[in-house]
């Protein structure tokens, strides 16, 4: 029998019915009076000087209110670094970059006029990869990098294409590698790609007569947007209101500042009238940011029996044209650079390099899915060289309480039980029945393993808030700054508050839309931190409300408030439950028979701020940046056709230590969704560029995400080692399921083919090429 009544139960998502009935209103569903529509002219070149933009014909077109170009608003914006003009200024740096915008009475007129804008370009030399961008004679994408404002935690290197360089120096890595009995070294890579959230980004912006700025946005971070607009456009922050209805998928892609800066300029150009800008699918993939690419070099040193002693890691990230979140992705990847392994000597240089690719922002897994690919492949290579089973070598090196992280911070008593996760994942995938099985002449079955860890990458002073108000029937309204992005955090928050109130989650009404004017401040619905941080705040708000309820009730009940408890919609004496009051008699003040009233309405207030976190030392990486680490183990089983190298992923398993499962169905849903995204990355997702760095597969006809029917069988399990400071012991689980999957799939396919496959996506033709090359090399 569970000690909890509401925690650990699978309540349906509070946002679910409206969504499946098509009743959820998204940003694009809003049609304010006097609405104008904008459309973008986007670049067909990846790197070029803008020689001229002829807007005359577009301006004269029917219904057009204004046409703007970069020259009209020569500003640069940014999330961490101010390097990004909302409309290209003098040159374009990636294919799909917006160069001009038309504002017209209808969307149709705006799109029609965009076709009439004529842009002349002069091609510049392109940077096609981090390697390319790091060459001594590479063209500089941002000549004025030294003039850009940036936050302290980012370390750009002006005069190069390096937007950030994070260093980790723990122990003596080079020496330890030299001393190691076994050393493996290899390179790994993957291209940039896209989130492909179902809802494309959209913004409606308006400037009111009093100068107030009102923006409806598809954002995961309404407060970040508000603060960056204030900073960049010098608008008093209180005069900006962001309204953020639930969004149709974020995955990190809506976590920073996206279209809102341009949106503000659009309404400014239209005398403050409301202007709507909605990305079409192709713009969402190419003009707005996506997933970062990477080139990695890994060197691992171990003892003869496979105990890791050193890692030398060079992570070169393909940021694309602008820094956005990419600088912090490269930073997060350095902080967690080793994956969940105990390695005493570590050197990591994580570089965020500008290229002429569509730029990168946050993406599910934030630095961790990226680092896990080279690390998990390397662990298999090490296992092979050491002659040790891949699961056993992971078990041997798995991080545990008392070890230190790459930033030299102690893995404390809240460290999850990774070995238990490995054990359960191995059992679910039937590892002991063999990881390579020849099914028949043409088919092999192979299995692959991948571990994961993740901590939130967020400022050390990140907080969350919660407010509880009451309805006349005694039911609660929970206000937070957490966004509903499809992840179901709000349902979990309702369960947390319901548990504390001894009531059903149905009695907790959730404010789904976030309005920055009324919601408590929140950093961003990102980093898988919502349930932990807002959960703590909500618990404090619940306790605060309960205190007030007991205080009010104690007066007519003529008892000490501390003898009262709240449960089942009543407040009553704990030791004599028949003496009590229904909550609706208390939460708006108690009223005596003669009309006298006391105390007034209850407003619960709670907040939480991360404890004892710090930034990291710029030279050594030493510090404590991580709120908590979720640990886990994942594995896949694939079946490969040895003729054409097509394959199917038959089964995917995952076991994570999440501290406490609040809602089993939603937790499973998050993990399954994350795994399917990981399969997408491993199997097919990646931009393909031609020699001019134009994206040749920037449409969903050519860019393939995983479809229903291509899903494997999933088996999901959780270990519950409590997070001492998490509400009911929980830690984050939203992103984590993606992290180990690309490595696990590449490991399985490498095992199936007997060839090192150190890249994703793994397309059958590419596997065939790799096998051909390997046999060619062997024969030399």
């Amino acid at each position, binding site marked *: 029998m569970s000690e909890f009544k509401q925690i650990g139960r699978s309540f349906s998502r509070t946002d679910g019915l409206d969504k499946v009935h098509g009743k959820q209103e998204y940003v694009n569903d809003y049609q304010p009076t006097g609405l104008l529509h904008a459309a973008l002219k986007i670049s067909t070149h990846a790197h070029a000087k803008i020689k001229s933009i002829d807007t005359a014909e577009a301006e004269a077109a029917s219904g057009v209110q204004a046409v703007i170009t970069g020259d009209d608003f020569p500003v640069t914006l940014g999330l961490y670094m101010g390097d990004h003009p909302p409309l290209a200024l003098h040159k374009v740096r990636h294919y799909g970059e917006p160069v001009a915008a038309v504002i017209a009475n209808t*969307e*149709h007129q705006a*799109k*029609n006029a*965009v*076709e009439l804008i004529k842009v002349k370009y002069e091609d510049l030399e392109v940077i096609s990869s981090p390697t390319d961008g790091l060459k001594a004679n590479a063209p500089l994408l941002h000549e004025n990098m030294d003039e850009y404002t940036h936050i302290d935690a980012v370390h750009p290197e002006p005069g190069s294409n390096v937007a950030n360089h994070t260093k980790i120096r723990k122990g003596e890595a080079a020496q330890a590698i030299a001393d190691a009995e076994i050393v493996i070294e290899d390179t790994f890579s993957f291209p940039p790609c896209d989130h492909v959230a179902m809802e494309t980004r959209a913004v409606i912006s308006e400037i009111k007569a009093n100068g107030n700025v009102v923006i409806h946005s598809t954002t995961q971070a309404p407060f970040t947007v508000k603060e960056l607009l204030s900073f960049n456009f010098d608008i008093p922050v209180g005069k900006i209101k962001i309204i953020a209805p639930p969004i149709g998928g974020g995955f990190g892609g809506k976590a920073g500042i996206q279209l809102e800066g341009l949106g503000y300029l659009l309404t400014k150009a239209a005398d403050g009238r409301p202007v709507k800008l909605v990305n*079409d699918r*192709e713009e969402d993939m190419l003009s707005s940011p996506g997933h970062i690419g990477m080139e990695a070099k890994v060197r691992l040193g171990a003892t003869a029996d496979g105990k890791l002693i050193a890692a030398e890691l060079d992570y070169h990230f393909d940021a694309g044209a602008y820094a956005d979140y990419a600088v912090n992705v490269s930073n997060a990847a350095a902080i967690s650079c080793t994956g969940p392994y105990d390695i005493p000597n570590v050197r990591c240089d994580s570089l965020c390099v500008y290229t002429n690719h569509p730029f990168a922002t946050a993406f599910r897994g934030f630095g961790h899915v990226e680092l896990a690919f080279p690390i998990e492949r390397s662990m298999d290579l090490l296992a092979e060289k050491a002659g040790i089973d891949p699961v056993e070598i992971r078990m041997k090196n798995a991080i545990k309480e008392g070890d230190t992280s790459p930033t030299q911070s102690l893995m404390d008593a809240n460290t999850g039980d990774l070995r238990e996760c490995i054990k359960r994942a191995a059992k679910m995938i039937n590892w002991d029945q063999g990881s390579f099985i020849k099914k028949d002449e043409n088919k092999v079955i192979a299995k692959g393993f991948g571990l994961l860890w993740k901590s939130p990458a967020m400022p050390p002073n990140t907080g969350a808030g919660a407010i509880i108000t009451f309805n006349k029937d005694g039911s609660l309204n929970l206000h937070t700054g957490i966004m509903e992005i499809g992840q179901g955090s709000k349902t979990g928050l309702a369960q947390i508050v319901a548990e504390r109130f001894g009531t059903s989650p149905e009695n907790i009404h959730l404010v789904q839309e976030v309005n920055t004017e009324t919601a408590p401040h929140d950093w961003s619905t990102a980093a898988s931190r919502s349930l932990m941080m807002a959960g703590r705040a909500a618990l404090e708000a619940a306790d605060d409300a309960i205190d007030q309820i007991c205080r009010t009730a104690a007066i007519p009940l003529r008892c000490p408030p501390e003898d009262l408890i709240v449960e089942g919609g009543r407040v009553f004496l704990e030791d004599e439950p028949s003496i009590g009051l229904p909550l609706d008699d208390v939460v708006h003040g108690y009223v005596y028979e003669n009309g006298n009233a006391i105390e007034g309405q209850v407003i619960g207030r709670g907040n939480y701020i991360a404890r004892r976190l710090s930034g990291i030392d710029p030279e050594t990486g030493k510090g404590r940046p991580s709120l908590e680490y979720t640990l886990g183990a994942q594995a896949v089983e694939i079946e490969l056709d040895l*003729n*054409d190298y*097509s394959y199917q992923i038959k089964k995917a398993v995952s076991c994570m230590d999440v501290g406490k499962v609040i809602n089993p169905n939603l937790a499973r849903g998050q993990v399954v969704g994350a795994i399917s995204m990981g399969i997408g990355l491993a*199997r*097919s997702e990646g931009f*393909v560029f031609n020699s001019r760095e134009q994206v*040749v*597969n920037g*449409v969903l*006809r*050519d860019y*393939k995400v995983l*479809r229903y*029917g*291509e899903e494997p069988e999933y088996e999901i399990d959780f270990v519950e080692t409590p997070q001492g400071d998490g509400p009911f012991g929980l830690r984050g689980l939203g992103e984590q399921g993606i992290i180990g999957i690309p490595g696990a799939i590449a490991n399985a396919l490498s095992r199936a083919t007997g060839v090192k496959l150190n890249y994703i*996506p793994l*397309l*059958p*033709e590419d596997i*065939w*090429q790799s096998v051909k090359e390997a046999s060619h090399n062997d024969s030399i």
Partner: protein
Amino acid sequence: MIPFNFKYYRPANIEEAVELYQQLKADGEKSIYYAGGTEIVTNARDGQKKYDALIDLKDINECLEHGEKNDEYVFGACLTLNEIVEKDYFPLFSLACRPVADHTTRNQLTMGGNICGKLPYREVILPLMLVEANFVFAGPEGMRTVAAAEAYDKRMLLNEGEFLVQVKVPKKFAELDYHDVRKVKQSEVDYPLLHLAALKDEADQIRIAFSSICAFPFRLEDIEAIFNDSQLEMEEKVEQIVAKFPIPIKDDKRGSADYRRLLLGQSLAEIWHKLGGDA
């Protein structure tokens, strides 16, 4: 959103449709016959196609006919691929229709649209090339029925102002052994790297039609002669067949010519194996 304005017509019969086209042409307007619209709409949306008018054929009874007449199956050009798959008069035809796009899109995609469209794949025509199908065209000169060999060469041989009304398939072909091989880059819901349809005729000769391996679908007697030559080893056959291809094997972002060549060899061997070429 389609950024330009256009007229939309939905004629009730063949004559009206044909006349409309002529009238619009006389008025200097560019019109297109329209069926499922998946290709026209997506191309218009991304600016690859522009037109003044669409003439939707989906109200024309003959274009929606789906049944048996004497010794033939009749397939109206505006039948959706799902309708053809679900009725399944001719299993090899269903096999060719089923993998095109996804199920939702196949509620919209039409047989005629797939065959007459501009995309290079046109997989639905493969079985029709194998079975001596008859194509019924309508145009300013009236109706005409054309044998497959004359109706298609690299593309449907429609005259200006003509459209495909129906296809008629002799029933006897539905009884024959067949095999269909389709290879993709990765996702099943994608244009193929190659798609082959094969059928063993009454004289025990295997007929093969090819899609996606080159820039247009084709069937060649020379190729079938090589394929049915029991003196040749499979590798020799493939070698000689490739040499007979009307144009070189396609090399594009979906797959290299080398990989397609590999898949072709495997697919031909599979057809030979399945249809018992030796027997």
